[in-house]
């Protein structure tokens, strides 16, 4: 499957499938790469394929299905996007899938722009980024409890005295 509206270019798709053994995702979206090879992939895309602009990191929370026969459990799927520069710019996207208490190696050493986006995803979705130099909340106050974009977080949760 592919990312609608912004597909990977053929060479990146080939790289993902052949070298990084990316899998298709039944829920759609970009190919899934193993967490351990995620940093290596980003480095390769930046240095060899000239994907120089940091695009986005999107974490989505998937609560454990009711009939959890396969033992999938609670998941967080994190999609990354990098953009190449100049004419005919393309987006290179991939996905990383971790259990809800897992951690992803941070991309900050490669892309300084990943700093705030990763902090934001930590803040709102609660995905941990290993080795992040400044792992604080970005949007909400430091004493906030819970991660609002989790599916089990009610939209009108009243945790703060000002509400």
């Amino acid at each position, binding site marked *: 499957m592919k990312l609608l509206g912004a597909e990977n270019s053929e060479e990146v798709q080939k790289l993902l499938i052949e070298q990084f053994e990316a899998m298709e995702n039944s829920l759609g979206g970009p190919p899934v790469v193993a967490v351990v090879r995620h940093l290596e992939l980003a480095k390769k895309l930046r240095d060899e394929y000239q994907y120089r602009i940091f695009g986005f990191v999107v974490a989505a929370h998937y609560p454990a299905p009711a009939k959890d026969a396969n033992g999938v459990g609670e998941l967080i799927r994190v999609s990354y996007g990098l953009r190449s520069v100049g004419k005919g710019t393309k987006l290179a996207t991939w996905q990383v899938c971790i259990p809800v208490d897992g951690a992803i190696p941070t991309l900050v050493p490669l892309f300084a722009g990943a700093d705030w986006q990763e902090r934001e995803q930590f803040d709102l979705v609660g995905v941990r980024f290993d080795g992040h130099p400044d792992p604080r909340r970005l*949007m*909400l*106050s430091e004493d906030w409890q819970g991660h*609002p974009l989790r599916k089990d*977080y*009610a*939209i*009108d*949760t*009243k*945790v*703060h*005295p*000002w*509400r």
Partner: protein
Amino acid sequence: MAVDESYRTYSHPVYDFMMKVPGLDVMTTTVDKLLSFGSEASLWIFPVATSCCGIEFMALAASRVDADRMGAIVRGSPRHSDVMIVAGTITVKMAPRVKKLWDQMPEPKWAIAVGSCAISGDFYRNIYSVVPGIDTFIPVDVYVPGCPPNPEAMMHGLIRLQEKIRASANGRDVNREARPEAVHHQRLPRLPILGDPARTSELDRQQVASAASLGWWDELNLEQALDSVAKDLADESESEPKV
């Protein structure tokens, strides 16, 4: 006409002196009118322009509408200002700051809530991080509805505020009803409703009179107005259950 002193919540040396000196206190009505004229004619604005309404607020100060015509200029420091215009969504992270800024303003001071976010939170109202209306933590004098309201509407809000100040000096204004205290500081806006069994009918009466005194419909028949409100409420409660 006797002046109701209750609305003056602060002390001022000049005013206090005049009240103490025998002979001068009879002048206080006149002086009070003069002072209130000064207040209403020179409303310096402290903008808490957080979001979209802030842009329209800028248009209020800009060429086409030009709030400076009525003496309203924008100041950057709350200490210099008379009226705080809260334009935009206030979040739980921002609300303590707004409260602090409000506390820093010297009396007499007023607040205008501009836009539906500042009034009630709009469609962000139920979201975890948004304060449902600034009147949950500061007193608001004028509400300017809209999303965002036009600069002309904000100008109209300022004019309504002037009318209110004038009415206060004439002793015709009634203090707003305090919001009920909620448990655990959690307050949702609850607009005072006429005919509410929790209120005294005298308060209803005074507020209708106060509302009438702000406008140009001085001839309004209060009994009639109250009756029609009561009738509306009765109809409403019959037709559908209150949400």
